[in-house]
Each structure stands twice: as structure tokens, then as C-alpha cells.
């Protein structure tokens, strides 16, 4: 194998796979990437057996070939190279030689056959979706997905597709057992009704890809029994699906609330931030007291001190005092974009619904704490 490539071009590819390659040393080959040179491009492939990422990058290939080499070392080397172009050569014994300007590196490589292959997912019936819409849906739900939860289905984002008037409704739901977020968006597409759970890591990687300089443009989604497939110009990501039954999330989204108050998001966000400075470190507890005409936020930490802030709100109804983990509130607030939000409460032990005014298709639920 012998090729010439622009530093900028290969760097983009190397950057993308850093999150995918295995950091724990369970299977050494998984910390490598697979490099295939063919025609007028190279392919960079990485997988941790859960997620696979394959990208195509323009190159001048003199001699086609393939090799696997440490993804991290390759990235670190290329990042530091002085010149704009580099040359990659594979020599006998799978030595990978990188030459740029006056720098030369020789990396230990392994033959390509040892690299696990990515699963094949049929590409028929893929759904086309605007990258921006998808990115927004992920941003609004991924924060609430569980991490390392023993209830393993909670470690993934729940996706439900159903045909509705006007197109295909895509619903995403995340929950960690303390809070939940749910978003519905209708796109112009057709697909059978289907539910699946996509691992958090895959969605994080996908979001990263969508956040690259050119998020605009279409992305295509496809699903097989065990895998999800995401495709965008020259880039393919495959992820295993989480097998299992997602809990009955609709049951915990309050349908009716006795107390509702709307408030400017910025005002509320800053007040929560300020007051939570003095919340107890481990619990982040903030007390929220809703009374006629005002909302009072307060914290009390016997070791440090106490804080309170009063916000004027348009509210006429029974008073209620509820405790929340301020971190959960902040997560919701930073996922929201509109200027006004609505809080819907019942009592101190019932879920609180937070919505953005003008978007009834995005719902966040936060469970109270006892304070």
C-alpha cells in the first residue's frame, strides 16, 4: 500500500473514530483502525463491536492495499505533522510508514484479516431525515438517558416510529429512572411502525458527527433486527441495538396537572444556578415554592449557608413546595431553546412536567426529591 493524502482530510477521519475505538484493553485489535486504500480514496474503519464507523476520504493512491494500525497513535502523529501533505506506505511485516516533510514514523501494524468486519445492514427502505432535526432531537433527549444502569434498557435511547397524518412520526425517549424526556417530530417519510433502543454511546457519536461543520444535509437511517445504520455522504455508522422491553414511559408523563406556571427560561435558569451554589454537594437539592404571584427557590446547607431567590410569576392557585435536584433542572433547561417554559406540578412526590411554550411535542419530566 502506498498513498498520498492531505493532512486535513485524514485528520477529519481520524478524529471521528477516536470515540469509537476501544479504550479498555480487552481486545488489543479493537484499539486499532482498519485502513483500506483503493481507487482515489481511503477508507478508515473503526469498531468496538457495538458500534462501527466507516468513512471515505480523498487520497492519491499509488498502490492499493489495507492494514490495521493503532488509531490513537496514528491520530496523535498526524495531528502534530508539520506539512500539509503526508505519505503512507506499508512495508514488509506490516510496518506502517508515515512521511511528512522531514518527519518519519514507523508504526507496528497488523494484517487486515485480523480486523473484525462490520455487520451488513441492508440499505433498502432507509429513511431520509434532515441532519438538523435529528441533531436537535438527540440533544433534547440524550441527557436523560441512563449511564451504566443495571436496568440495561435505560442505557439506550428509545426510538418509536409510526405513520401519522402528514408523514412519519419519530419519537425519542430517554430516562434514567429519575427523569425522562420525550420528543416527537414528523418527517416526510414512510416506514413501518417499529420500536428500538439505540445505545447511548452510538447516539453520542452520531451527535458528534452531526455537530461537525456541515450539519446540514440529509442523513439516512435504516434498521435491521439487531442493528441501526446511519449514512451520510461517505460516512457510515452501524450500531447494535439493545434488546429488551422499554418501560412504560407514558405512564409517568403527567397527563394532567393541578398547578401550572410559565416563566422566562433565562430568568429561571440563572436563579437556579445562583441558588444551587449553596445546595448540598451530593444531593444538589433545591427547594421550589410556588405561591400566589411568586416562585421562591431556596437552598440550605448546614455546613455552608443558605440562599433564596424570589421570582415574580403569574400564578393563582394553591401553594406547593417541592424539592428538586438542581442538576436535573439545569439539564432540562440547557436542552431547551425557546424563551418561555412552563412548569406543571401536582404535589411534592409527583412528577413535574417541563415544556417549552409553543412546542407540545417536547416533554421533560423530573421527579422531585424530598427536602
Amino acid at each position, binding site marked *: 500500500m502506498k498513498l498520498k493524502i492531505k493532512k486535513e482530510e485524514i485528520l477529519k477521519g481520524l478524529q471521528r473514530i477516536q470515540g469509537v475505538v476501544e479504550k479498555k484493553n480487552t481486545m488489543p485489535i479493537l484499539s486499532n483502525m482498519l485502513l483500506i486504500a483503493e481507487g482515489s480514496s481511503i477508507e478508515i474503519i473503526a469498531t468496538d463491536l457495538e458500534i462501527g464507523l466507516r468513512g471515505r476520504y480523498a487520497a492519491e493512491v499509488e498502490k492499493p492495499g489495507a492494514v490495521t494500525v493503532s488509531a490513537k497513535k496514528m491520530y496523535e502523529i498526524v495531528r502534530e505533522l508539520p506539512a500539509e501533505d503526508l505519505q503512507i506506505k506499508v512495508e514488509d511485516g506490516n510496518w506502517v510508514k508515515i512521511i511528512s516533510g522531514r518527519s518519519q514514523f514507523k508504526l507496528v501494524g497488523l494484517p487486515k484479516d485480523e480486523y473484525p468486519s462490520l455487520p451488513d445492514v441492508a440499505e433498502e427502505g432507509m429513511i431520509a431525515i434532515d441532519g438538523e432535526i435529528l441533531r436537535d432531537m438527540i440533544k433534547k433527549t440524550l441527557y436523560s438517558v441512563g449511564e*451504566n*444502569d*443495571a436496568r440495561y434498557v435505560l442505557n439506550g435511547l428509545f426510538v418509536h416510529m409510526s405513520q401519522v397524518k402528514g408523514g412519519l412520526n419519530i419519537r425519542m425517549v430517554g*430516562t434514567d*429512572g*429519575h*427523569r*425522562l424526556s420525550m420528543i416527537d417530530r414528523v418527517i416526510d417519510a414512510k416506514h413501518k411502525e417499529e420500536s428500538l433502543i439505540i445505545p447511548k454511546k452510538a447516539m453520542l457519536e452520531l451527535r458528534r458527527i452531526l455537530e461537525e461543520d456541515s450539519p446540514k444535509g440529509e442523513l439516512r437511517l435504516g434498521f435491521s433486527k439487531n442493528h441501526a445504520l446511519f449514512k451520510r455522504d461517505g460516512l457510515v455508522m452501524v450500531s447494535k441495538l439493545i434488546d429488551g422491553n422499554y*418501560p412504560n414511559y407514558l*405512564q*409517568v408523563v403527567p397527563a394532567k396537572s393541578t398547578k401550572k406556571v410559565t416563566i422566562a427560561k433565562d430568568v429561571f435558569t440563572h436563579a437556579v444556578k445562583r441558588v444551587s451554589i449553596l445546595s448540598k454537594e*451530593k*444531593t444538589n*437539592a433545591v427547594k421550589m415554592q410556588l405561591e400566589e404571584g411568586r416562585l421562591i427557590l431556596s437552598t440550605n446547607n448546614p455546613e455552608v449557608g443558605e440562599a433564596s431567590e424570589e421570582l415574580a410569576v403569574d400564578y393563582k392557585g394553591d401553594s406547593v413546595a417541592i*424539592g428538586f*435536584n438542581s442538576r436535573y433542572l439545569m439539564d432540562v433547561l440547557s436542552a431547551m431553546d425557546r424563551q418561555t417554559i412552563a412548569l406543571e406540578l401536582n404535589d411534592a*412526590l409527583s*412528577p413535574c412536567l417541563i415544556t417549552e411554550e409553543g412546542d407540545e411535542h417536547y416533554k421533560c*419530566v423530573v*421527579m*422531585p*426529591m*424530598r*427536602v
Partner: protein
Amino acid sequence: MRSILHIDMNAFFASVEQRANPALRGRAMAVIGSENRGVILSPSYEARAFGVKTGMRYGEARLACPDIVFVPADSAKYSHACEQLIEIWRSFTPLVELFSIDEAFLDVTGCGALFGDPVQIALEIKERTWEEMKLTCSIGIGPNKLLAKLGSDMQKPDGLVLIAPDGIAVVLEDLPAKEICGIGPSLTQHLASLGIRTCGELGRAPLRLLCSRFGIIGERLRNMGLGIDDDPVAPLAAQQEEESKSMGHSMTLDEDCSDMPLIERHILQLSEKVGRRLRRGLYSGRTITLTLRYADFQTFTRQRRLRHAVNHGLDIYATAASILHELRLEQPVRLVGVSVSGLERDVEQVPLFVEERKRKFLAEAMDEINDRHGAFTVTWGTLAERHSHERIISPAWRPEGDRQY
């Protein structure tokens, strides 16, 4: 110079039983763990005269004293008596540190103007303990806890020993090192291998030698030999503030047992108790440890770390039972223990899912009922028939706070 009293109740459980039942007075008797087996918890002084000791097995005790009467432990009686004692002690000083259910340290420094010198206070305490409760105790008085405890050990029963500063060296010179509270059998052996047998020798031992052998406790050891101890008397409230590192319970079974369902039931009962204690202290923990002791006293523990902290009896049980199921029992089991460590403050976050919420609220409702009407008043059906099983009071028992259950 501080004035510390160490009060050690004489044959506490036995004396309480003798006080309650006139037929037992003056007789060789002993309080035991349970009807059929276990060990001697507290022999009366009449039984001690025959050589019956705490920790003996029944057979041994009966061999030493054929006429001995065994009385099963009644923890409620002892904890109640302990609460009364604390009240007497607290009328002299707020600085009362309960060391175990029948021992306490009192710091009476500066109480002179109110109650007289430490010896007068000790005499007064002994008199009131006898007048009000018909119990005797041994009291040691010293400038610190170490010496006070040594003093109370020197005269039993009904003793009063003052170790004055100028007498410390004399007392310690030929005292075997193992008499000091904190120097156990294995430490005694290590010290002996260095040629240190008495406190006098320990106090003269080069600090470098002790530190190279025992590490950071080297200095403390030498201080013990010199009778130096700066440890303050920590009153009850302060003791509870201290964060617990683990919570656990264990029990000796009525008879050696190979019956899995029965062992599981014991584990469930212990798990429930541990869960209740965790919830009471607003704790939850991630590491579950199962302890088993075989009939031949071989004891071992196995633990498992969970991804999430738990404090519900059923969660603790599920983990402890799964550990049990992975073991191949080589012998009948004599003792079972369950403990939870890796404690975190339970953040009082209400769970989102209805099932989990119900479970949390159910546990709280059960706790509330059991707080009012006694432990295990409401419990799982599996445990209903075990309710009558009297528990053995734990040495870590405290009248208040998270050690109470």
C-alpha cells in the same frame, strides 16, 4: 489534667436477669444466646466462681458448673436498663461515651465544684446505681480513657480504682501488654516476637522498631505502653455524627443448618434489618457482603459490588442470596451475616417509575409501623414464623441513632 471515669457494669445481663427474677438470685446462672445453642453471653458471679466465662459454649459451661441455669437473652430488658444507667451518668456530666451496652466513659474534668472530686463522683454513681437499679459496677479513674479502663478491670466486682499520675509507671511496669484495651491476641503475639511482653517494655521500646514493624500505629502503641492517650470522650451525639462505613447483622442459628431455604430465610431476615438501619440513617450502599461460619467455626465472607447503591431489604437479600447460590456448602452453617458497605447518603430522590416508587413508599410505611410497634411487626410472610426468634443484642447497640436496629 483530665479526669476520666470508666464504668463497667458487673455481669450486666446476668445481674439484670437476677434482679428481674428472685429465683435466680444467688444462683450460678448465665444469659445465653438462644434456647438451643450459641454461647454464654454473661455468666453471673456465682457461675464465674466455677470458671464459667463469656464466650464459652454450653457444654463447656455445664461441664464446669453442672447446676448452672441458662436464661435466654432478652435484649429489650438490657437496652432499657442501659437507658436508665445513661440517665444516671448524664446527671453528672454531658460527656458520656457509651463504649458498649454495659460500659461507658465519663469525662468529669471540671465537675469538682458541683459534685466533688472524681472519687466522690464515682462513689456517688455506685451508690445511685445500687439504690435505683440494684446493679453493681466497677469504676476506674484515670487521667485518660486508657488508664480509666485499666482501673475498672483491676477490681471486680464492685470495684473502685484510682490511677493517679504518679502511680502510672508503677501500674504499667509489669502489666502484660495484652491487658491494654486495643492490644488483641495477634498484636500480643507480634509484640512478644519483638521481646515485648509488658507495658513497661512497650513504653521503653524504640519508636523506630515499633514503626518499622507496625507502621503508623507504632507511635500509638508506645504511647499505650507509657499510659498516654489523648482520645477524647465522645458523647453520644458526637458518636452518631461519625459517618458509618458499613452496616451489618449476623446471627448464630438455632442449630447447624444445611437447608438452603432456611438459610435463605435467615438471610432475608438479616437483610431486612440491615435495610431498615440503612434507611433510618438515610444511607444506601453498593457492596453487599455475606458471611458464613461452618459448624467447625471456619468463617469466610464473599462480597459483590453493585452498580447502584441500595437500601431496600429485598435488594440486599437478592444479592446476598445470589452469592449463597454460587457457593457449595461444605458443612452445615452455624452463623450467617449480611452487611452493606460502600455507603452513600441516600439522596432522597423519588424514583420515576411507578413500581419503584411504590416499593420505596411501602418500605417507608413498613418502617413507620415497625418504629411504633416494634421491629418485624409488619414483614414478609416468609419471615412471619421467625418473628418469635429473639435476636441477640449486638455489642454495637446504641440507645439512639442508626445503630439502634
